[in-house]
Every structure is written in C-alpha cells, then in structure tokens.
C-alpha cells in the first residue's frame, strides 16, 4: 500500500515563507541602501538644501493629515447617508459616490488642473484667473480620491452594527445624539481608524496627483532625483520612511485591532432606512452632489471632450497592448506572491501574523520607493542574461507584484480559511483522487477568490504610475504613463483618448469583479 509522503513541517514551511517574503519585501530597501553606499548615475544630482527637505517633509505630513481629516468627515457622512437614509434617489447617489475609485489620482488631478486653468474649458467659463495647482489643489484632489475608501469601510461597519444595540440604548432613555456619541462612534472607532490608516498611507505615498499638481512632497522629490547620481535620492527615500512610519503608528493607534473588533459585532441587526428632516436631507444631498460633480462628472466630461474633439498625436494600440499584458502578467504574479503567504496563514488557522504584516508592509511602501529601490538594484546587476531579464520587464513585474500582493492575499485568505477540510476528507473517502479533489472540491471553492484577487490586482496595476514609469522597459508605454506624459506635453487629445481607454479597461474588470462578488454572495 502506498503511504502518503510526509508533508513539509508547517513551522519549517512558514519559516521559509517568512524568510522568502521578507527577502522580497526587503529588496527595495536594499536598493535604497546600495544607492546610499555606492551612489552611481549618468548625471550628478544638484545639491539639495535642508530647507527644501524640511519643506517637502512637512508638506508630506500636512498633506496626509489634511486629506485624512476631510476624507474621514465626507466619507463617514456619505456612508451614513448610504446605510441610514432613505429618500428618493438616495440609493443611486450613494452608489455613484464610490465610482470615483475607478479614476487614478493622477488622472483626476490632470483633468481638474487642465479644466480649471484660466484658459481651460471650465476655467474660462468660470472666469478663473489663477492656475489650479499647488498644495491646496493637491489636498482637494486627494480628498476626492480617498473619500470612497472611507465610505466603503465605514458603510460596511455601519451595516454590521446591530441596530438592537442602539434600540437598547434608546429604550434606556438615551437621546439620538447620545446614542451617536456613546454607542455608534465607539463601535465605529476601529473602522474609522482603519479608514484613517488607509487614507494616511495613500496620501503620504501618492505620486501621481502631487506630480501633476507640482507639489513639493517627498515622493515627488524622490522621483525627480531618482535617475541621478549622489546621495540625495536615498536620503529623500529615508526621510519618506521616517515621515510615513509615525503616520502608520497613529493610524493603528486610532483603529486598534480592526479585525478582532469586528468579530465582537458579528450579529447583523435590523437596518431600516430613515427619512431625515428636510433641511438635513438638503445639506447632505448638496454635499454629495457637489462631491460627485468634482470627482466624477467634471473629469468624465472633460476627458470625453478632449478625447472626442482634439485629434490624438500618436497611435494608442501600443500602450493599450502593453497595459493589457502588464496588467495580466502582474495580476498573475500577485496571485503567486499573495497566495503563498495566504496559504501558509490559512494552514496555521489564521496565525502567522508576521507573514500577514510583511505582505501588507510591502503594499504600504510608496510605489515611488519600490520603483527607485528596484531600479537601483537593476543598475547594479552585472551586464549579461540576468541584466537583460531585469531590463526586459521582470523587475517591473516584481515591483508591481510586491506593491499589490496584499490585494490577492486579502481575496484568497478568507477562501482558504473557509475551505472545509471535512468536505475534502469526504471526497477522499468517496474515492476521489487528489486531482479530482482539486478539480471538483478545492478548485470551485477557490475560483471566485482567485478571480477576485486577479481582477483587483489587474485594476490596481493598470492604474499604477510611479513603478511603471520608473521600471518599464525602454520604448514601451502604458496607458497610465501615456496620460502622464500627455499631460506634461499638454497633448490633451492624447490624454483624453488614453484616459477613455484606461477607464474602459478598468470598468470592464470592475464589472466582472462585481459579477463575481454577487455570485459569491
């Protein structure tokens, strides 16, 4: 009788996995260190003054904090309207309010900057005299970009909040304001903290909007010094780590342990929509409407106008194919890089927190830093087949997979954790071979999560800018880099066509994702 071969001991596999993941996550930091120790570059960078560094650092922190505060207020208000209010058109309005997620921040920034410029389509109409750029404009754009993240996180938490708890407080004589203050807000605190963490990291690590708006923050500074010799770029990279770390700690302090707090409110209660007072409804709807105008309607109108009315300068087929190829291959790479730790964590029944932390840390590292670190490593690879491999796009895929591995991890972990071992044992006892178990039991259970993980990563990859901009092989362009270049060259026709194509691609993937998630429910 054939006895099953002993599996690799879990602790050893986990240790190897931890080491492997740590090594991959450490690559950009290694590149940063090498750039500091052995600075190389075709042109030496100009000297950088302390004042400029201090300004960029304080701008980074202020930008992150301001965007977080405004996005938290707006996103929480929209989440409340979505879950707790019922008035004609409320469902449509709140569904539309998460659609700006499909617009990358650099595209939103580019359309608003060009559209609201004194000679822009809307700027002229409104009689604007000043350019729409700089720190304030960046805060505005990033608030528009980040609000849907807050809305999604807070509305999910609000839906899970059992109404019985609020009813209990009401039956004990608590007024509506006391219920919000003492029951709802403390219960939402983990979700609000988690949303704050998301927005803090997003705003501090953003490259696209700050580059388009010419805002001197650390990510944009690092990009500007990246291709030059000298220690300026690694110095800025180090400062970026120093600036972001306290923000992450602050976010975690605010949120506590989001996952375990959610578990204490597992029972879903009766959630009934309420019709608010007319004046409250008017203010809420006006805010939501204004948000939608700037975050969705205006950008879409401008993109369509430029794409349709202004002739494009160059063909689009190349960037379109490159985007699709990079999106698909990097999406598959994230499934491997995120799937491995997810499988190990699931095997240990949700333990191995270090692996999970590492996966999320990798995704928290700003794209511009990953791009810079890997670029420095590639520059130090000796000429030969390995160098060709790196320059041929492998390093780009590695960067994108590192950046978005957490998307696949988050999609796959729950599916792997909920895979019933008993159903597999039942299949084996019924005579199914290992292959048939995979095909008919494990596979169908994991398929929706694999598809979701892939599509989530695909959408993020095709919208990504700094890693692609820094690591894409010479002579290639994606739709994202085409939009960025077209904005720099003021070719609005190119910008419009590329943006419409990118949005089309994202919307198709998003539609598939919604279909899958509905199927899963």
């Amino acid at each position: 009788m054939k006895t099953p071969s002993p599996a690799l001991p879990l602790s050893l596999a986990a240790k190897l996995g931890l080491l492997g993941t740590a090594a991959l996550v450490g690559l950009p930091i290694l590149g940063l260190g090498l750039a500091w120790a052995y600075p190389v570059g075709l042109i030496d960078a100009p000297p950088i003054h302390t004042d400029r560094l201090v300004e960029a650092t304080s701008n980074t922190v202020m930008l992150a904090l301001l965007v977080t505060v405004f996005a938290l207020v707006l996103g929480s208000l929209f989440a409340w309207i979505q879950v707790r209010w019922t008035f004609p058109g409320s469902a449509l309005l709140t569904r539309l309010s998460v659609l700006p997620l499909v617009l990358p921040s650099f595209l939103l920034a580019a359309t608003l900057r060009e559209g609201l410029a004194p000679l822009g389509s809307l700027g002229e109409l409104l009689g604007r005299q000043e350019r729409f750029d700089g720190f304030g404009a960046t805060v505005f754009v990033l608030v528009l970009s980040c609000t849907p993240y807050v809305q999604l996180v807070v509305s999910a938490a609000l839906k899970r909040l059992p109404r019985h708890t609020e009813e209990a407080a009401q039956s004990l004589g608590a007024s509506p304001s006391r219920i919000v203050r003492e029951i709802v807000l403390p219960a939402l605190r983990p979700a609000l903290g988690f949303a704050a963490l998301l927005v803090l990291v997003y705003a501090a690590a953003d490259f696209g909007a700050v580059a388009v708006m010419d805002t001197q923050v650390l990510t944009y500074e690092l990009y500007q010094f990246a291709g030059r010799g000298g220690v300026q770029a690694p110095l800025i990279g180090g400062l970026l780590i120093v600036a972001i770390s306290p923000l992450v700690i602050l976010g975690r302090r605010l949120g506590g342990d989001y996952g375990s707090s959610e578990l204490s409110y597992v029972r879903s209660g009766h959630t009934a929509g309420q019709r608010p007072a007319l004046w409250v409804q008017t203010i809420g709807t006006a805010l939501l409407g204004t948000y939608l105008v700037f975050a969705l309607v205006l950008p879409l109108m401008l993109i369509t106008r430029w794409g349709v009315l202004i002739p494009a300068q160059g063909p689009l087929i190349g960037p379109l194919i490159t985007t699709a190829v990079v999106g698909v291959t990097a999406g598959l790479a994230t499934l491997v890089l995120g799937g491995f730790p997810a499988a190990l964590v699931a095997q240990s029944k949700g333990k191995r927190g270090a692996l999970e932390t590492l996966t999320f840390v990798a995704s928290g590292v700003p794209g511009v830093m990953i791009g810079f670190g890997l670029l420095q490593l590639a520059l130090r690879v000796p000429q030969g087949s390995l160098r060709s491999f790196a320059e041929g796009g492998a390093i780009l895929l590695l960067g994108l997979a590192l950046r978005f591995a957490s998307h696949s991890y988050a999609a796959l972990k729950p599916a792997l954790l909920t895979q019933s071992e008993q159903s597999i044992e039942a299949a084996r006892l019924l005579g199914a071979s290992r292959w048939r178990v995979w095909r008919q039991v494990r596979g169908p259970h994991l398929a929706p999560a694999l598809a979701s993980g892939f599509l989530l990563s695909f959408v993020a990859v095709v919208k990504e800018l700094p890693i692609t901009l820094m690591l894409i092989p010479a002579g290639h362009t994606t739709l994202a880099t085409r939009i960025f270049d077209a904005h720099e060259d003021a070719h609005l026709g190119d910008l419009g066509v590329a943006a419409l194509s990118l949005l089309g691609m994202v919307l198709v993937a998003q539609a598939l994702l919604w279909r899958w998630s509905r199927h899963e429910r």
Partner: protein
Amino acid sequence: MSANVLSLDAVQLAYGDTVVTEGIDLTIKAGEWVSILGPSGCGKSSILRAVAGFMEPSSGSIELFGAPATAPPERRGVGMVFQDFALFNHLSVRDNIGFGLKGAAGAEVRVNELLKRCELTDLADRLPAHLSGGQQQRVGLARALAPRPKLLLLDEPFANLDADLRGELGSWCAQQIQSEGAAALLVTHDRREAMALSDRIAIVDGSPGRLQQVDQTQALYQKPNHQAVARMTGEALLVPARAADQRARSAFGDHDVLAKIEGSVTLVIRPEHMDLVPDANGPLVVDHSYFDAQQWMHRLRYNGQTVTVAQNQRLNADRLSLTTRSPLWAIAR
C-alpha cells in the same frame, strides 16, 4: 383591580405593504407576566417593537400606563431585554448596567445593588466579550431593570442559551422581575418556557399573525379554542368527529365530550387521554421509541400528524390501537 400597564387594541403591524400581524387585542396588569407564544414569522417580535416604540402600528392603538403610547422609545419608560443581548461591547459590565441611569440620583447605589443581586460584582469591570452567554444575559436583564421600568419587554431572551441554562435563567429572571414589581411581556416560540414563566399566554398564529386565544396556561391546555392553540400548548392528536349531546363519534370510537357543541368538531386527544395497546392492524404507527430519564417516549404517527407519548414501559409494537379516557375537549370546525 389593578390598572393596566399595557393595552393593545386591534393593533395591525406592517412593513411597507406587508402586514405581519393584525387584530391584536391584549392587556397586561401591573406585576403580571404575559407571554406571546407563536411560531417564527407570525410577527410576535414586531408586537414588542411596536410597544417599545421602534415601529408604528399601521392601525389600532397602544396605551402604556393608561395613556396613548406616542412618546419616542427613549421616553416610554419600558425596559427591553434582547435575544442577542445587545450589550454595549465597548463598555464594562458596570457601565452597561448604569447606562440608563446617567445623571440619576443614587445611580451608583442602584448599579451596585443590581451587580450584587445578579451575582455580577466580581465581573463588574469586565467587557461583555469576556463573559459567558448566561452572564451576558444577566447583564442585559440588570441593565433593563436599572431604571426601574414598570413594564419589561423580553424578546426571546433565552433562545441563544443551552437548554439547562435556559430553564435556570428563566426562573431566576422571573424572580428578579417579580421582586422589582414590574410587569413583563415575553415573546417566545418555546411552549415550556412560556408555560413555566407566565401568568397568562397569548397564542399568535398564522401569517399575518392573529391572536387566537389569551388565557391562563391550564385553561389553554385543557380548553383550547383553536387547533393551533391545542398544538402549541402540548402534545395532542387532533381527530375529526361528529358531536351531539356531549357525545362524539370518531375513527377511534365514541367519546364523552366536555364542550356543548354540535356537528363537525375536532377532538383534542392529549397523551393523558390515551390508552395504547399493541395491535398489528392499529391506526397508530410507532415511528420511534426512546428512553428519556424516567419514561419511555413513543413518537406516533396518525393521518399526517405526529404525537409523542410518554409511557412507563416500552411498547414493543410497530402499530397501536387507541382507546380514550375521560371526557375530551372538542373544537368546532
């Protein structure tokens, strides 16, 4: 005669166009314990929500303490205990109990008194997540009792607890409520729970739920006025018969009947009315027999109905015949 703390008059409740319960007439006197017993989906929890003020009746009226109940929930002066406990998970046991006493004179004394009475003193500083189900429900009850409500609403409060704890906690709960002098309205689908705790039971059945009968437990068991009431108050075979002059003829023979009704009736044959004899051609089929602590239980099937009957000895037979004892109760059909 004591005053009514609650009166429901022809109350109809609906979610949008869907009526969940209608024609509910019910009164509760001070200190009285009334249970609403009914199957899932008959709208019994909605009745409680309407009394608490969380939903408005689509027709009919509710009076609390002699006045129309129009105040919002926070000013109705009724307490409520929930099936899922609905504790404030971010507050300690002490703060949960004291929540409804904010700003009230003697709040601390009252909280300490309830902590002691509910044997929660040692757990006062713990968060609800660190308590067992039974302890959580004691906190839920103490919290609801703290503001001294004259009426306590209990929405299947023991449904999430295991069977042994359910019985124990139910009796304890009744004692606490009684010692506070509060009236109670319990919603449950558990017949034993309702019968063990209530002065009177209101049986609700159907969809939308309608009130079938309100009475004391023994009266409901012995003289149900509806087949649903007979089924919900205990084991019974419901057998069609023709009745005249307090006699009835059914498939099981002739019987004396208590009710003075004529024509087509349904006889209510409780286990204590049954004499069962093994009979290969008998009409009752023995589905299953098992020993339960002191007696042999036999699950019998007859004409699409099942009834479980306790006997001192095992009946070693596949089929049984039945003769009935004493006068039976009959319901008009």
